[in-house]
């Protein structure tokens, strides 16, 4: 259900070699490492390292990259914004209706660096998430001591967004069956306008019902998932993470600079 938000697995799955908590934390640490690297080529190398590592771990790249691609606008925004806002060395001028716009060399480099970092971080985190179910993720967040109230909200949000979307789809269908497409543009707008209000209202009512159902089975704002503890194999993950940092700070810089 959460498919359109996060590439989480669904259903029961064989537990992987590492605990979800360790996997999640590793992804975050790897993201921090990537963020500290200042050389675009090194980030690119790290990106490929993630791709290789993920392939070895049989990551579902199609789901992960598909989701990462949805952030293209955010990434492109920064890649295109930096060259015209950051730096001193002018390498070119774009003529716009509002006057000339200088393009800076430092900005181009910065844009590329930021873009690469974002893509790498997104891919890393989403790939890690793709190896756990929603319950795993919640268990992991609980293991790292995220407050129950935040977890509770997360669970509810994950459940209510689909309720909301379902409700909207049903109403769109109902309107279409009663000729929404054929009406004039103004009627159509009016119908859509009232639909938004009704959708929110109905989704809210249904959410209340769903929340009742959760309460009846013991949901108290906190989450039932037994905080899945760490596993002995997580040490291996720590070592891999060390290698990742080593590559980021020593090996790749040395190779790339050569």
């Amino acid at each position, binding site marked *: *259900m*959460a498919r359109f938000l996060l590439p*989480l697995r*669904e*259903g*029961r799955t064989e537990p992987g070699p590492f605990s979800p908590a360790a996997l999640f934390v590793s992804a975050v640490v790897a993201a921090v490492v990537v963020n500290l690297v200042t050389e675009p080529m090194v980030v690119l190398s790290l990106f490929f390292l993630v791709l290789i590592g993920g392939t070895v771990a049989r990551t579902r790249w199609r789901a992960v990259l598909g989701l990462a691609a949805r952030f293209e606008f955010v990434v492109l925004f920064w890649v295109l914004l930096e060259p015209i806002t950051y730096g001193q060395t002018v390498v070119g001028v774009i003529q716009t209706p509002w006057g000339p716009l200088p393009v800076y060399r430092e900005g181009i480099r910065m844009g590329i660096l930021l873009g690469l970092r974002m893509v790498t971080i997104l891919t890393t985190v989403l790939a890690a998430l793709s190896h756990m*179910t*929603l*319950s795993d993720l919640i268990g992991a967040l609980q293991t790292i001591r995220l407050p129950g109230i935040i977890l509770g909200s997360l669970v509810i949000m994950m*459940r209510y967004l*689909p309720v909301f979307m*379902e409700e909207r789809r049903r109403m769109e269908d109902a309107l279409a069956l009663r000729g929404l497409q054929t009406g004039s543009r103004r009627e159509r707008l009016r119908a859509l306008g009232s639909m938004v209000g009704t959708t929110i209202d109905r989704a809210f009512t*249904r959410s209340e*019902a*769903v929340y*009742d*159902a*959760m*309460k*009846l*089975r*013991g*949901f*108290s704002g906190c989450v*039932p*998932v*037994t905080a899945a503890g760490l596993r002995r194999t997580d040490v291996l993950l720590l070592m891999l993470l060390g290698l990742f940092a080593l590559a980021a700070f020593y090996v790749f810089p040395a190779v790339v600079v050569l």
Partner: protein
Amino acid sequence: MTCAIDIIDLNFRYDSFALRDITTQLHIGEQKAVVGLNGSGKTTLFKLIVGLLRPLSGEVYVLDRRVTPEDLWEIRQQVGFLFQNPEDQLFAPTVWEDVAFGPQNMGLSNEEVEDRVVEALSTVDLLDLADRPVNQLSHGQAKRVALAGVIAMRPKVLLLDEPFAGLDFPMVEAVVDTIERLRRRGVSVLYTTHSRFFLENWADSVLVLESGRVVYDGPADEALREPRVLGQVGDWGRLRESIHRSRTVPLDIDAGLGADMEP
């Protein structure tokens, strides 16, 4: 004698009164049908029993324990509530996780949770759908998954809100069969229905509500001799006559409805 459910002088209002002076009992092992027109307060009564709503006045006891805000979780582990609309009841990503939700909250070990889920899903004969996302179920399947979620908590009392509405015949059979199995283990059942068939064949006693008041509370066989009760479950003879009349009498009275169909 201890009661599964004991309700004393219960009053409740939303904007206006929804239930007035309700007093009734469900004995242990008993199966009671709650009958009443739409809006007569059946669902509201169920919600009061499990503490989703708080009474304006009066008392509700479940297995001799008063329903109070402090004791809700204790009570909800004893009473399973099957919603009228199963889509409102399912919320986890998959069937398995949904059924496991209650047992997990009861603090059972992973093995125990797994046992209960397998047992509950086998009881409703849906073990093969365990990994299915809950939004990809048919209405009948969703209803049975919701029932499995209730059963997995091994309640001693079941509240079923129109358990058969919208189900085809094999599904009705399957649900009846499931509940009969639970009854043999001593589970007490309170359920709402609009069907005369179930009053005649599947109830020890009947509670009839009319605009939030009790108008009959007693044995099922006597209930069917009461005209007031028959009015609630449908006077099919009258409907049959009315259909027959409209099909044989020439078209002219329903001017409003059929007017623009005239040439």
